[in-house]
């Protein structure tokens, strides 16, 4: 039967005498959704989340296309056949949205019982869609079937929509409560996007259908505003794509944005009346197209550059790892050789092979000293490498920090004396119990004192240990070569030598302060250096939480 009061459409969906908003609301929303959905699907066809998003956008686009047909077509049989898809498509959108949010939040497929629930909710929709429970007839005068929608339309489809919204809100709230802080932003963005879409789609759709059936509106023009919910959803999806790479898709937001803009501007041609507006819109469309192409190209270039940098960074990391392995291997081997040589010198020096000739004694002594320094240097490099690779384990046990510092000072006093330096130590009078790794802290404090001794040609080195409130402060102050602001910047970095440090200490590995920093930070503390400049001495302060 033909609705004889209305004109026949061309190409199924194009007709005159229609609300101005019709094409503007339908075409951009459905094409934007379909484009983004398809792009995400295409870039990760095996990922369930991508598939579900594509299915939602596909159902929405089919619904929009069917809706456009019902607005423009005049054949009752075609219209009713098309009308019969509204309910099933709405139901699919609702249930797929729940499924989508479940997979998004749990990073896994829904369990069988949940799929069973989805099936139980959807099966009646498809079974009853062709029956009179869904649609009974058609009004040729108004060219619609609003007055003939059965209980499925009046109750079930809308109830399913609102059930989906409540279900999704429940899942989101639970996930937000349990999620780590870094995931909460994603949950909020996704929640806002999908709930806005469903609320607008089902809320306005229900309101429009109800008010039209009740005779408050001549037609269901209001429902067009509900379609903009999908545009909002896609905007949020784009933000999530760009910020969190949720769908494992490289950045496509500019492409989607430009296409959406072109569609939105292009859709305005469907209702523009005046020639001036037509020309202005054509100019805007052309400019948007040109700027869009430039934008997409520049973003593509940036993405390629970023990928290149990421590849280089990966290569560098691999090379670094190989280098660390090599350093480990070499230093271990070297340490073995030097330790062996040192032991031989030690045995010779101690007279294990009889008394040495007088002329040989000084050479053996020099060999022993040199090998001892060599072992210490290699050990320092190994320690730094172990710290960097995270191999160091800290055994935290309470011990007397004062006793440790006193012991270190005693050991190093001979070294200071040999250089003509005064080593003044103030550790208080009472024991200072501290829960930490004694051996590692001994290494750190020894490094700091030793460092000051090495870089102080004359004067004194002062060592101070005290507890102030909830902080234990260990301080080494010297009258040495000082630190320039340039050197200060990379003092605690790996291999961070001072510019002229080699002139004062040729044996420096540059790893000493790096090791100190890592040990102190592993105890939850901080370490810093202070100096008024070259030649003005330096102060190293390590603060540990008591």
């Amino acid at each position, binding site marked *: *039967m*033909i609705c*004889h009061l209305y004109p026949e459409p061309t190409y199924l969906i194009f007709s005159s005498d229609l609300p101005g908003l019709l094409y503007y609301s339908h075409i951009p929303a459905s094409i934007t959704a379909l484009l983004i959905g398809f792009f995400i699907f295409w870039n990760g066809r095996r990922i369930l989340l991508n598939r579900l998003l594509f299915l939602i956008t596909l159902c929405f686009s089919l619904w929009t296309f069917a809706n456009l047909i019902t607005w423009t077509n005049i*054949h*009752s*049989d*075609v219209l*009713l*056949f098309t009308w*019969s*898809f509204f309910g*099933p498509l709405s139901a699919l959108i609702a249930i797929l949205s729940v499924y989508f949010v479940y997979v998004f939040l749990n990073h896994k*497929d829904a369990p*069988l019982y949940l*799929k*069973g629930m*989805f*099936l139980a909710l*959807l*099966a009646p929709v*498809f*079974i009853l*869609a*062709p029956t009179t429970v869904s*649609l*009974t*007839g*058609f*009004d*040729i*005068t108004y060219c619609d079937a609003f*007055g*003939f929608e059965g209980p499925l339309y009046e109750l079930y489809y809308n109830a399913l929509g609102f059930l989906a919204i409540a279900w999704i809100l429940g899942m989101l709230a639970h996930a937000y409560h349990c999620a780590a802080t870094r995931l909460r932003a994603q949950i909020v963005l996704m929640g806002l996007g999908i709930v806005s879409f469903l609320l607008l789609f089902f809320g306005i759709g229900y309101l429009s259908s109800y008010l039209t059936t009740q*005779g408050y509106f001549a037609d269901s023009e209001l429902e067009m505003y509900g379609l903009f919910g999908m545009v909002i959803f896609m905007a949020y999806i784009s933000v999530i794509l760009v910020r969190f790479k949720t769908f494992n898709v490289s950045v496509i937001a500019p492409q989607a944005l430009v296409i959406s803009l072109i569609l939105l501007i292009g859709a305005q041609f469907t209702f523009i009346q005046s020639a001036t507006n037509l020309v202005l819109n054509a100019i805007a469309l052309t400019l948007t197209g040109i700027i869009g192409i430039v934008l997409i190209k520049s973003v593509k270039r940036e993405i390629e550059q970023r990928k290149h940098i990421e590849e280089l960074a990966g290569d560098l990391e691999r090379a670094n790892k190989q280098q660390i392995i090599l350093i480990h291997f070499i230093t271990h081997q070297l340490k073995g050789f030097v330790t062996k040589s040192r032991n031989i010198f030690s045995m010779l020096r101690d007279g294990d092979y009889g008394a040495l000739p007088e002329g040989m004694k000084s050479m053996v002594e020099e060999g022993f000293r040199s090998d001892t320094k060599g072992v210490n240097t290699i050990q320092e490099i190994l320690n730094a490498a172990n710290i960097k690779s995270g191999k160091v384990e800290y055994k935290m046990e309470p011990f007397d920090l004062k006793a440790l510092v006193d012991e270190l000072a005693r050991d190093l006093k001979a070294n200071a004396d040999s250089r003509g330096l005064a080593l003044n130590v103030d550790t208080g009078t009472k024991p200072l119990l501290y829960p930490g790794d004694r051996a590692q802290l001994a290494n750190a404090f020894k490094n700091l004192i030793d460092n000051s001794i090495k870089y102080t040609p004359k004067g004194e080195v002062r060592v101070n240990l005290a507890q102030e409130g909830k902080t234990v402060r260990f301080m080494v102050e010297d009258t040495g070569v000082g630190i320039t602001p340039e050197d200060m910047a990379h003092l605690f970095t790996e291999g961070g030598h001072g510019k002229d440090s080699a002139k004062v200490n040729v044996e420096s590995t540059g790893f000493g302060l790096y090791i100190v920093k890592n040990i102190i930070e592993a105890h939850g503390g901080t370490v810093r250096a202070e100096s008024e400049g070259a030649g003005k001495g330096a102060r190293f302060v390590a603060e540990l939480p008591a």
Partner: protein
Amino acid sequence: MHIRRHILLYTLLPLMMLSGAASFYRFVVANDYIVEYEGECDPATESCFEGCEDDECTEHYPYKHMSKYASDLRAECGPDITECEMASVCLPGDEACSVEYCDPDALGEDEYCFVAEEPSIEESEDGPQAPDGASQEADGDAGEILETSI
């Protein structure tokens, strides 16, 4: 395992296809639905509703509510009922057919009963006047219009 994982696809897809095919058969092939429309009405013999020819409602026409089974209507009139007299009457072979005439006691919102224009004595003496009287009455209370017409 494969079936359990894709249970929704394997059950819903055939259901959707069957549902679509059944809808196509019911609505497009069998025309198994009721059609409502405005049938031609003769105000001289029937109590008709009043319809507007245009948005401003300056011209009126009489009609009655018709309801027919689409399959019967298509067999009697083809797809277009505008020039089909059988569309405005219930025939003996019609499966489900009903006619609703204007009842002043059961008028819906924006529904009026049609008032046939009869030339008054003044009009016949002074010559024809613009049909303002009919449209004004049509804009007034439907009950009053019917009282004067019946």
